[in-house]
C-alpha cells in the first residue's frame, strides 16, 4: 500500500490550498478528486470575488483557480484526477476508485475537503428533463460552452441563484422569473440588483406549483404561499419556459468523515451534518482534518483560508513545524478569516432580519423583496451623492466584506475605512478624474459614474457592462431603471474596454438630466 504524509480528498479551493501549505513545509502530499479537472467549484465561477486584497477580491473565480493550480504544481503537489474516494477508515486508510480499479492508500494525516452537494426540492414534474441544478447550469455554460436552456425560471434567491442567474443572462439565455419561497432575498443585494435592472422579475414568498410538459419542460406555474407554506388560491402565475434551474442550497458532503467515526453534529448554521471540529479543522480523530464547505457552507474565499489552516495544522501534527510557528502562521490567517465572517451575511446572522446597517441607516426594503433599491430609498446611502462634475455613485447598501472599490481609486474618492464591511462613501473633498477603475473593480457591479453637467440638459451615466453584443457609440435605445423598467431615451456616447478592467466594459450613455439618478441600464433599440 502506498503511504503519504498527507492525503487530501477534494481538489477544490480548500483542498488545493491545504496541499500547497503542507507541501511548502516539506510534506509528501497527494490529492484525489473525482473530476476530470481540478479546481472544484472555482472554474465555474466567472464573476469577480468579494473580500479584500488578501482574499483575492475582484479576481474572477476561474482565474483564482488557475493561480492555485500553478502554485500546487510549483510546490510539487501530486493531484490524481478521476479518482473517487469511497472509503475512509479510522487508521487513516482510504479506498479510492480510479476508473475500474480500486486502490488503497495510507496517510499519516488526512484532510477531507469534499465540498458540498446541491439540495433539491420536489414538485409535480420535477423529474422532467429540463429541470436542472444550478451547478449543472454552470457546468454546461461555463465549462462546456453550451446554453442550459433558452427561457429559464430560477428557483432560489441565495447567492448561488443570483450569480448563476446573471451568468445565464451573460451566455444569452432569458430569465423569465426568479422565485423564492422565503419572504426576502437570501443573497447579496448587489447581486440581485444586477439582475433586476436588466428586467428580471423577482417573486418572493412564491414557489413552484408544477412543471409542465410530457417529454420535457414546456412551462411552469408558480403561486404565492402563506406563512405556513400553503399556496394562496388565485395567485398562480404561468411562464412558458424550457428550463427550471434549482438553486435551493448546499449540504456538506461529510459522509466519509462519518464513516471514519469522526464525531458529527447536525448544525443548520453550517448547512447540515458536519464534523465537530476546532477552528483549524481538527476533527475528533487526531490527524484527520477538514476544510471548506464540508465543514460548513461558506465561500471559496473562506474555503481557501480554512484549507491553508488545515494544511499548516497537519504539518504541525506530523512535526514538520513546531507549535510556535503554527501559532504565528495561524494568527494572521485568523485575522483574514474573521474579516470575511463579518457583516449582515455573517454566519451568525443567518436567518436574521436586519433592519439597520452598522451606520444606523434603515436597510432598503425593496432590495430585499424586489431585488433593487427603490428611487426614494437610494438617497439615504453614503455612496450616493450629487457632487458637481463627474463622480462615483456607489449603490452598495448592505454591510458586506468587500473593499476593492476603495483600493481601486487612484484619487481616494471612495472611503470604506478599516472595517471592510462598512458602506462605501464618497469623499467630496477630492475630485474624481473619471478613470472608471472603481466601476470595473466593483465585484457587485454597483458603481456608476454620473455627470449631471455633461451637456446642457443632459447627464452622462457610466455603467459596468458584461454582455455581448457590446453596443457601439452612437447607438440609441432605452435607459432602464433599477427596477428594469424603461425610464427614458438614451444614446451610447462611449464604450471603454481596457485590459485593467478585466472584461468589465464601461458603457457610457447620455440621458436627460432629470433621469440622472434613475437610469442604470441600457437596452439597444
Amino acid at each position, binding site marked *: 500500500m502506498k503511504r503519504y504524509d498527507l492525503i487530501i480528498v477534494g481538489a477544490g479551493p480548500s483542498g488545493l490550498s491545504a496541499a500547497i501549505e503542507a507541501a511548502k513545509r516539506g510534506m509528501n502530499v497527494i490529492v484525489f478528486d473525482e473530476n476530470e479537472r481540478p479546481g472544484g467549484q472555482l472554474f465555474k465561477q466567472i464573476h469577480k470575488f468579494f473580500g479584500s486584497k488578501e482574499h483575492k477580491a475582484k479576481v474572477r473565480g476561474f482565474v483564482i483557480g488557475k493561480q492555485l493550480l500553478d502554485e500546487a504544481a510549483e510546490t510539487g503537489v501530486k493531484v490524481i484526477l478521476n479518482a473517487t474516494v469511497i472509503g475512509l477508515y479510522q487508521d487513516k486508510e482510504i479506498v479510492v476508485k480510479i476508473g475500474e480499479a480500486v486502490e488503497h492508500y495510507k496517510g499519516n494525516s488526512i484532510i477531507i475537503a469534499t465540498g458540498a452537494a446541491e439540495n433539491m426540492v420536489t414538485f409535480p414534474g420535477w423529474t422532467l428533463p429540463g429541470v*436542472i441544478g444550478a451547478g*449543472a447550469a454552470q457546468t454546461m455554460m461555463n465549462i*462546456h460552452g*453550451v446554453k442550459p436552456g433558452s427561457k429559464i425560471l430560477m428557483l432560489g434567491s441565495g447567492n448561488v441563484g443570483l450569480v448563476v442567474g446573471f451568468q445565464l443572462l451573460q451566455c444569452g439565455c432569458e430569465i423569465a422569473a426568479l422565485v423564492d419561497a422565503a419572504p426576502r432575498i437570501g443573497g447579496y443585494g448587489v447581486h440581485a440588483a444586477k439582475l433586476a435592472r436588466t428586467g428580471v422579475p423577482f417573486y418572493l414568498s412564491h414557489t413552484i406549483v408544477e412543471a409542465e410538459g410530457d*417529454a420535457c419542460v414546456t412551462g411552469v406555474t408558480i403561486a404565492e404561499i402563506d406563512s405556513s407554506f400553503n399556496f394562496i388560491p388565485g395567485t398562480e402565475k404561468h411562464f412558458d419556459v424550457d428550463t427550471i434551474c434549482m438553486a435551493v442550497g448546499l449540504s456538506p458532503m461529510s459522509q466519509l468523515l462519518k464513516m471514519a467515526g469522526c464525531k458529527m453534529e447536525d448544525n443548520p448554521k453550517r448547512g447540515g451534518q458536519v464534523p465537530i471540529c476546532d477552528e483549524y479543522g481538527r476533527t475528533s480523530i487526531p490527524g484527520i482534518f477538514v476544510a471548506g464547505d464540508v465543514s460548513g457552507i461558506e465561500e471559496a474565499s473562506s474555503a481557501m483560508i480554512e484549507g491553508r489552516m488545515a494544511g499548516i495544522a497537519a504539518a504541525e501534527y506530523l512535526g514538520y513545524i513546531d507549535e510556535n510557528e503554527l501559532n504565528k502562521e495561524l494568527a494572521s490567517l485568523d485575522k483574514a478569516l474573521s474579516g470575511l465572517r463579518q457583516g449582515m451575511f455573517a454566519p451568525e446572522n443567518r436567518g436574521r432580519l436586519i433592519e439597520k446597517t452598522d451606520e444606523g441607516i434603515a436597510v432598503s426594503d425593496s432590495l430585499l423583496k424586489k431585488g433593487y433599491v427603490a428611487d426614494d430609498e437610494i438617497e439615504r446611502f453614503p455612496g450616493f451623492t450629487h457632487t458637481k462634475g463627474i463622480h462615483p455613485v456607489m449603490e452598495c447598501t448592505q454591510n458586506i466584506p468587500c473593499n476593492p472599490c476603495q483600493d481601486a481609486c487612484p484619487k481616494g474618492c471612495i472611503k470604506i475605512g478599516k472595517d471592510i464591511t462598512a458602506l462605501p462613501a464618497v469623499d467630496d473633498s477630492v475630485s474624481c478624474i473619471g478613470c472608471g477603475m472603481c466601476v470595473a473593480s466593483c465585484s457587485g457591479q454597483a458603481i456608476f459614474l454620473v455627470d449631471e453637467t455633461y451637456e446642457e440638459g443632459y447627464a452622462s451615466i457610466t455603467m459596468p457592462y458584461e454582455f*455581448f453584443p457590446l453596443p457601439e457609440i452612437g447607438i440609441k435605445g432605452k435607459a432602464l431603471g433599477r427596477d428594469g423598467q424603461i425610464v427614458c431615451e438614451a444614446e451610447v456616447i462611449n464604450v471603454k474596454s481596457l485590459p485593467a478592467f478585466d472584461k468589465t*466594459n464601461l458603457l457610457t450613455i447620455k440621458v436627460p438630466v432629470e433621469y440622472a439618478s434613475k437610469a442604470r441600464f441600457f437596452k439597444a433599440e
Partner: protein
Amino acid sequence: METRIENHPILGDTKKGKPVTFTYNDMEVQGYEGEPIAAALKAAGIMVHRYTKKEHKPRGIFCAIGRCTDCVMVVDGKPNIRTCVTPLKQGMKVQTQYGVSADTFDKQQRGV
C-alpha cells in the same frame, strides 16, 4: 447549433476538440471530441436520455457532474453510461435507454 455559446463576454471562445460525428438512435449528430456526450446532445436539442424502468418516465441531464445518474444511456452497446461525464468520440453509438436496455418497452414486452 445556436445553443453553443460561440463568444462569451468573460470566457471568450470556448476551446473545442475536433468536430466529430456520432449517432443518436438512428440520427447522425455532430459534436466535438472530448466534450461530454450530454453536452453534444444538449447542443443538438436532445433532452430525453432515458425512460425509467417501472413508470417509463423521461429523464435528462440533472446534475451534469456524474452524481445523479439521470443522464445514463446506452453507449456503444453498454447501458448505464453517465453521458454527462463520458467524453465523446468519433463514431460513438448513443441510444436512448429504456429501463436498462436500448430496446423500447414495446419491444421488450414482445420479447423480440
